[in-house]
């Protein structure tokens, strides 16, 4: 086996092994407060919640939206896939929503995945998103369209 063939095989193997890991790391998990009675949301339901059209859970608890501060990769994923907006549109969207008295408050800012994980467990009704690689074992991860972040076809990548 020539050196070139060996190198190609090693590179190909590494690519094969690395690809699923990268995809998995790029996935963004939706996490809710442990007592929130929801296991599965459709993408449309998720959009309604994140866009502030749906502000209450089924048990009457108010939704509290925790959003990562700008620059985080997972924020970009949520802006693109859920809000379908860029940063400027996102800002104008929430200012308009508050100014029209459609919502009592805009999203709450979190500055790290640790902060997101911690607050989502202490604020009843909270919902947030974190990179799947930073989901802890006690996090309540919600399926989106019936899929977990590790499943093929998961929409939030």
């Amino acid at each position, binding site marked *: 086996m020539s050196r070139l063939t060996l190198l190609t095989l090693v590179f190909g193997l590494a690519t094969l092994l690395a690809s699923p890991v990268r995809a998995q790391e790029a996935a963004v998990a939706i996490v809710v407060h442990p007592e929130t009675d929801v296991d599965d949301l459709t993408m*449309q339901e998720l*959009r*309604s919640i994140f866009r502030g*059209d*749906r*502000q*209450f859970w089924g048990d*009457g*608890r*108010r939704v*509290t939206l*925790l*959003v990562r*501060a700008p620059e985080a990769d997972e924020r970009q994923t949520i802006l693109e896939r859920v809000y*379908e907006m860029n940063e*400027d549109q996102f*800002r*104008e969207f*929430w*200012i*308009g929503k*508050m*100014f*029209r*008295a459609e*919502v*009592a*408050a*805009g*999203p*709450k*800012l*979190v500055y790290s995945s640790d*902060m997101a994980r*911690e*607050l989502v467990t*202490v*604020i009843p009704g909270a919902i947030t998103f974190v990179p799947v690689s930073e989901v802890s074992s006690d996090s309540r991860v919600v399926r989106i369209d019936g899929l977990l972040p590790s499943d093929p076809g998961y929409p939030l990548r």
Partner: protein
Amino acid sequence: MRGVRHPTTWLIVGFLIAASRLEGQTPGAETEFLRGFIFADVLYKSAEEGMTEGFFIGQTVAHANATLSENLVFFGEVSVTARSSGFTLAVERLILRYEFNDPLKVSAGRYHTPISFWNTEFHHGLWLQGSVSRPEAVKFGGSYLPVHFVGAMLEGNLTDVPLHYSAGFGNGRTENLVGAGSAGDPLGSTAFVLAASLRPRGLFGFRVGGGAYFDRISEGGVEVADERILSGHLVWDRNNVEAIAEVFHVSHRELGLDEATGSPSWYVHVGYRLPTSVRLTPYARYEEISIDEQDVVFEDVLADYEAAIVGIRYDFESYAALKAEYRGEKVGDVGRTDSWFAQASFAIPVGGS
């Protein structure tokens, strides 16, 4: 309240501070856009000889939200408007709302009447709207539509159907027709308003809806006519395109008569955000109001109106925009007048990012 200067400033600051103190009890996280904004604008108008021109300080508007408890929320909006003799302070909106759930929210206070999309979408924030000014039919201080409403409102978002609805009753128009009285309804004519807007989930940015408003109009303390206003809107605001079309029909039936008069109005506003790194949005609007000559309420108050508007908006900062606009207007039988406007409008998030 005229001639208020420093007290006005302190009132607005106090209003925002008080609202921020009432912020919800969520621990450990700040709100991305906080609870308050100040909107302001400066306008330069150049017009034909005989018309007022020069610099105008527009409205300075302070807005605040507060969550008083899990279900009780407060919204307030106060404005300071520059006049030739000083400033006028006004409470534009003041709403106390109890939110049972998404489909059922009950509130009382002073609102922008949900009879027009523009009226409830942009309120007094000129930075939010695409053009220098509002369409004539919904302009503040105008008589065609009652832009403010004082009373109680039932509203909500239906979850199964993507529908937002509002239903309310309250004080009718005052005799100058501008809007509802905020200190009771001395004429005793309760007004009713109904509105609904459909926002298909699979078509984000699209809205279609309409409203109805019913009132009894008085003059000199005597009831003279029943008023019925019907409206409809069609909106597409997504990606690079902003398109808004609204129609209105104001009908008055003089008491004791069977026949009613009708005064329709419509406008179409289209803006296109250029796909460039410089945020430029050219826009155009055409609008018309046709007043029935036999209208017992509008006669001697309103005349036919039409306007063609062309302008460009430049968002040079995240919270600031410059707009340049040409407006050709025709009021009644008077010939067309041309005006040019330059406006700087901005929003200031109070303590926000």
